[in-house]
């Protein structure tokens, strides 16, 4: 009996051994073949995803003709997913442009793109349009004393700020100096130039009848159209700062030396100048931050060869109308009006403008569906060139079946 039991045991051991060999073969041989196959196909698929991304990012958006890679670069620079290409082209929604293409190729819910925006700030380009009448003597002096240092400090802190000062034609002789560009140092990021009537056609409006040294409305037209000395950079923060204590073309009512606040119709030429300034600013994407100098008090200027102190009653009476005009252009161009209590208040106004002009930036650009758990996710990283030389953002693309 023992012998039979051993025989049966022997057979069972043999059977188990053979079955173990079969199982081992299935798991090891077939498994390794399967793994090799999967890894090769996966590698091939990953390469396909990479090639596909490159091809898709090379495609262009219809209105701008810019490639999707360029658009992501501009988004990373501006910190916004919607890019305004101006009046002619309009706004481009980068998210939408990417979304439909990726959905078409990889399928909805099977991809995600993530672009952390680099920690940069946009170029800030400022154009000043300055009333050069004698009532601005102290304000311009204060601006000249503070602006160069202020810009230099900002630049040292990493902000790319530049300013071009346009002095409206006139250049009144003040008691202690004459308003001119000599007051401003010339640097690569700071320039001053006279806004000559011959070159600025807009300023020729009302010439001979109205005061062009105060025509900051038409002056803004020229500044917005011409841009700063270096020209408008693409996608920079464009800031226009008119400085005056009067209405554009003067606060005088129908050319008479008095103010008629209640008769707004008497200021139609001034209003035309303002509207022209608003239109040009909007068309050129320039935000206007007017600085209203204090129009009340006395001014010291050279009149008929001699020094004289004049009380600015007309300007003072029209103060509220000037505020209305300046608020109007600020509101319509997404800017802000600053009112100086006196000339020494200029640095505060400039500082506040610098802060207000900074646009809020998004931190990251994420599009697509959240990455699922327990899925084989293929990732592709690529560099996105920004519209700044030598600066790139990193973009991460994820795809899953």
């Amino acid at each position, binding site marked *: *009996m023992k*012998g*039979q039991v051993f*025989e*049966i045991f*022997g*057979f069972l051991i*043999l*059977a188990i051994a*053979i*079955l173990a*060999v*079969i199982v081992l*073969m*299935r798991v090891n*041989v*077939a498994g390794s*073949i*399967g793994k090799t*196959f999967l890894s*090769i*196909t996966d590698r*091939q698929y990953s390469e*396909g995803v990479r*090639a*596909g991304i*490159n*091809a*898709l990012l*090379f*495609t*262009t958006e*219809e209105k701008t*003709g810019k*490639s999707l890679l360029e658009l992501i670069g501009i988004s990373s620079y501006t910190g916004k997913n919607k890019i305004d290409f101006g009046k002619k082209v309009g706004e481009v929604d980068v998210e939408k442009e990417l979304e*439909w*293409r990726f*959905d*078409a*190729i990889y399928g909805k819910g099977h991809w995600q793109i993530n672009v952390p925006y680099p920690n940069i700030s946009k170029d800030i380009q400022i154009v000043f349009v300055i009333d050069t009448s004698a009532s601005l003597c102290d304000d311009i002096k204060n601006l000249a004393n503070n602006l160069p240092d202020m810009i230099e400090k900002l630049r040292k802190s990493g902000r790319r700020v530049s300013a071009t000062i346009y002095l409206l034609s006139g250049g009144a002789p003040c008691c202690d100096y004459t308003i001119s560009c000599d007051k401003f140092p010339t640097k690569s990021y700071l320039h001053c130039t006279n806004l000559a009537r011959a070159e600025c056609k807009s300023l020729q409006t009302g010439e001979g009848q109205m005061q062009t040294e105060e025509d900051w409305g038409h002056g803004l037209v020229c500044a917005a159209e011409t841009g700063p000395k270096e020209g408008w950079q693409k996608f920079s923060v464009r800031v226009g700062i008119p400085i005056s204590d009067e209405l554009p073309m003067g606060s005088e009512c129908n050319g008479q030396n008095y103010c008629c606040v209640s008769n707004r119709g008497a200021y139609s030429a001034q209003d035309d100048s303002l509207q022209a300034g608003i239109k040009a600013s909007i068309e050129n994407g320039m935000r206007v931050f007017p600085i209203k100098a204090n129009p009340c008090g006395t001014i010291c200027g050279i009149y008929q060869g001699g020094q004289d102190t004049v009380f600015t009653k007309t300007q003072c009476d029209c103060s509220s109308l000037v505020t209305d005009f300046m608020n109007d252009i600020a509101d319509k161009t997404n800017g802000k009006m600053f009112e100086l209590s006196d000339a020494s208040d200029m640095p505060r106004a400039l500082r506040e403008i610098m802060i207000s002009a900074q646009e809020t930036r998004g931190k990251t650009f994420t599009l697509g569906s959240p990455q699922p758990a327990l899925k084989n996710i293929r990732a592709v990283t690529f560099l996105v060139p920004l519209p700044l030389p030598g600066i790139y953002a990193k973009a991460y693309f994820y795809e899953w079946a």
Partner: protein
Amino acid sequence: MKGQLSFIIKPITLVMVVALLLLLYQSISTSIGRQKKIGETLDLTASATNILLILANSRDCLAYEAPLSKSLYANAIDVNRLDEFSKSYSGIEPECARSFDFGWRITITELRNTAKGIVGDKNWTFGARQFSPGNVPSVDFGMPVAIVYSEKIVKPGIMSIHLVDGELEKIAGVFDWDCAMGRMNKLTKSSLGIDIKSPITYDSGTNSLCSGSKIKSCRILDCEMAFKNLDQGKHVLTINYVNGKLVIK
């Protein structure tokens, strides 16, 4: 009694051992068969990928070349080349990406976003029109491409391939290869041993090689031939390139 029990158990054990060994053999055979099939599929997939990549990235094929820099971009294809290929290669694979082992046809679809959703706006197609009849190994897949109209107009698209590894493709591939070699004066004589599953006929009017008995699938050949139709079964063919023509016996 003990002895009789032993007489029964021993043959049963023997039978069971043989059965187990057969199971082991069958298992090994299945694994090898599966490995072979996976290998074939992988070969087909790799070949199809290579053809797509060559088509999209070779100057001789569809690749877009920037006019000033003369540089190429990954998977960016020239719309003018697409138009040209659709006309010139409506029934045969272009030489720039020709495979002598497989037959394939390419379809490129331009994608557009409309109010109704994403639509295939335009289509281009080229390559072999017909393939070996029956259940033959094949793969279908696509990859994204950028269709370049100009530097400022680049549209997204998908380039898809249908690749077939059949008898007709293989035989026609050998003839086309001999034709190419003959034209280059590199080889004027060769031989081919084949086991044909469907009858092979030659249509001199269209210069096509056809496979199948009732429903025929045909492929255009590169060279004209003097060819005697072949029945099912094993054949040994000698191929001679004579004055731009293949003479097959």
